[in-house]
């Protein structure tokens, strides 16, 4: 019985003994029992022999050459595939981004050129272009004049030739434009009414001959002096030189030629050009004029039919008011016509002791960089705004496009997978 208990205890702890997990005294106890009990001794021996054989079983096993070769080549293949796919991955990413940008830019360009913008948007753009007063200080003489820019932008707008020629009619007509004629055609198309003005500072060492040349230029351009005054005294009299201040009214169609010819008078040292679009004001005024004229005619009819004197007096009073308003508006219109037909050029002609280096012409590098940068920023801003509008405008089409692209992608992927298998 005692022996059995000891044997059971021995067998329960035999794994711990084999795994060397027993304390020294426990080990001793195990060994003592194995020495006294033949069965347990035999059991321990069998376990120990078996463990020795197992430990020895694969000790010198090496991988067969073909197996070693197999895993090496599959790892190399994997390595190649990974490299290729990472290259492909980059290419794919770059191509995807490029394609997306191309589509976006393309859509914007198509949108800008092809698709019709709302009419109000189009005219608003042109108007703002023309109405903006352009100030080109000192150096910037070789600019495109605002009027020319306006004409260009309108021509580019397509279908604007008629508008341009209509504008020309207004500008070229000598007297005040017949408001009724304008109002008839104005309903069909509005001709821009643009008031141009410019100012120039000119320097010359020979004051008298410069003044003569200016007068000749004014006469030759069908222009006239609206105002002129000379101040200062000659250098010979101990003065600081004379200055001619003048305002010249120049036929608008000859303005550019006139301004260009000022260089014959002397050295142009400062230049400012302005163009103001007063179309809205002009046509609103015309509409008011038509209304008032119609009212005047009605009142005339009423006068002929008037029965008693008090009515007549009342009507005549009213007619006087209307006539007064008509006169005021016609005056305003003719003033606008005059300013549209004859541009105002302020000229300051300075007498100088020495011919001052014609200031100008080349802006400094810094100025050119700043201008170029500002222009680019403005262009990019406009383009991005158009892009946003284009994206929003095209978004309804995405309802069709996205499912189509998704289907194509799924089909291509499944074909590829089959192919790979």
């Amino acid at each position: 019985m005692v022996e059995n208990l000891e044997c059971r205890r021995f067998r329960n702890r035999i794994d711990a003994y084999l795994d060397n997990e027993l304390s020294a005294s426990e080990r001793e106890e195990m060994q003592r029992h194995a020495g006294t009990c033949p069965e347990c001794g035999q059991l321990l021996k069998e376990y120990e022999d078996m463990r020795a054989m197992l430990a020895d079983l694969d000790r010198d096993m090496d991988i067969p050459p073909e197996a070693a070769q197999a895993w090496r080549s599959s790892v190399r293949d994997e390595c190649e595939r990974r490299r290729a796919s990472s290259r492909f991955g980059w290419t794919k990413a770059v191509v995807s981004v490029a394609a997306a940008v191309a589509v976006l830019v393309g859509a914007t360009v198509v949108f800008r050129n092809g698709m019709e913008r709302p009419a109000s948007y189009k005219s608003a753009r042109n108007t703002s272009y023309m109405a903006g007063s352009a100030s080109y200080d000192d150096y910037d003489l070789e600019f495109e004049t605002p009027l020319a820019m306006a004409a260009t932008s309108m021509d580019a707008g397509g279908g604007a030739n008629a508008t341009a020629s209509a504008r020309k009619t207004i500008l070229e007509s000598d007297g005040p434009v017949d408001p009724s004629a304008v109002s008839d055609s104005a309903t069909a198309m509005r001709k821009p009414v643009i008031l141009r003005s410019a100012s120039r500072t000119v320097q010359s060492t020979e004051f008298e001959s410069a003044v003569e040349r200016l007068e000749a230029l004014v006469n030759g351009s069908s222009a006239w002096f609206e105002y002129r005054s000379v101040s200062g005294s000659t250098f010979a009299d101990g003065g600081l030189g004379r200055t001619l201040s003048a305002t010249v009214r120049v036929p608008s169609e000859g303005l550019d030629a006139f301004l260009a010819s000022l260089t014959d008078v002397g050295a142009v040292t400062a230049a400012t050009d302005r163009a103001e679009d007063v179309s809205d004001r002009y046509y609103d005024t015309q509409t008011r004029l038509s209304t008032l004229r119609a009212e005047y005619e009605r009142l005339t009819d009423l006068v002929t039919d008037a029965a008693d004197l008090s009515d007549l007096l009342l009507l005549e009073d009213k007619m006087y008011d209307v006539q007064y308003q008509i006169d005021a508006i016609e005056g305003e219109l003719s003033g606008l016509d005059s300013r549209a037909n004859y541009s105002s050029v302020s000229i300051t002609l300075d007498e100088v002791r020495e011919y001052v280096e014609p200031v100008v012409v080349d802006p400094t590098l810094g100025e050119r960089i700043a201008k170029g940068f500002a222009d680019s920023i403005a262009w990019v801003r406009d383009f991005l705004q158009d892009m946003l509008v284009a994206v929003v405008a095209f978004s309804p089409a995405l309802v069709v496009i996205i499912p189509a692209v998704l289907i194509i992608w799924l089909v291509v992927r499944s074909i590829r997978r089959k192919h790979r298998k």
Partner: protein
Amino acid sequence: MQMADEDRLLIHEAARGDAYAFEQLMRRHEGRMYAVALRMCGNREDAQDCVQDAMLRVYRALDHFKGQSSFSTWVYRITMNTCLDELRRRKVRASSSLDTLLESGWSPTDEEDTPERHALRSEQKAALGRAINDLPEDMRAAIVLRELHGLSYEEISSVLSVNVGTIKSRISRGREKLRQLIESQPELFGREKV
């Protein structure tokens, strides 16, 4: 277990995709991987496939190895998982090819072995191999790692993701089964008894 600096460098290089560094690194492990795979699968073809698969798994997962266990334990785990996956996938009871086991793993260590003695030992080993092969998969995995590869219980627990108590019990029962199988063949093992 402290990882050798050389191993660390090779692991770093291999993780970046350097196949040559990977081959250098795994040269020290391929024999053990193959031995495990052969014991688990029971035949050369499957063992070769498993090693190949396990190597690819190690290569792909190398940049996730953060050294939380020893590299060798980690490699054992991947190898063992690959083998167990393979066994489950194929639903084949790992059947031993007698030839394979007879051929494999035997190299005479004692030059004074007589041909008879040599033949006997070969037979004993083959019988032992078959006995291992007859163990249930989980028991076999524990026995192979403990008795053939000398891993500690903690390492085996980490390789098989099973707690130490369970591992001890599997090994204990595995040893008992093997011993009984040996006991049942006294004509082969009896003569060796001292």
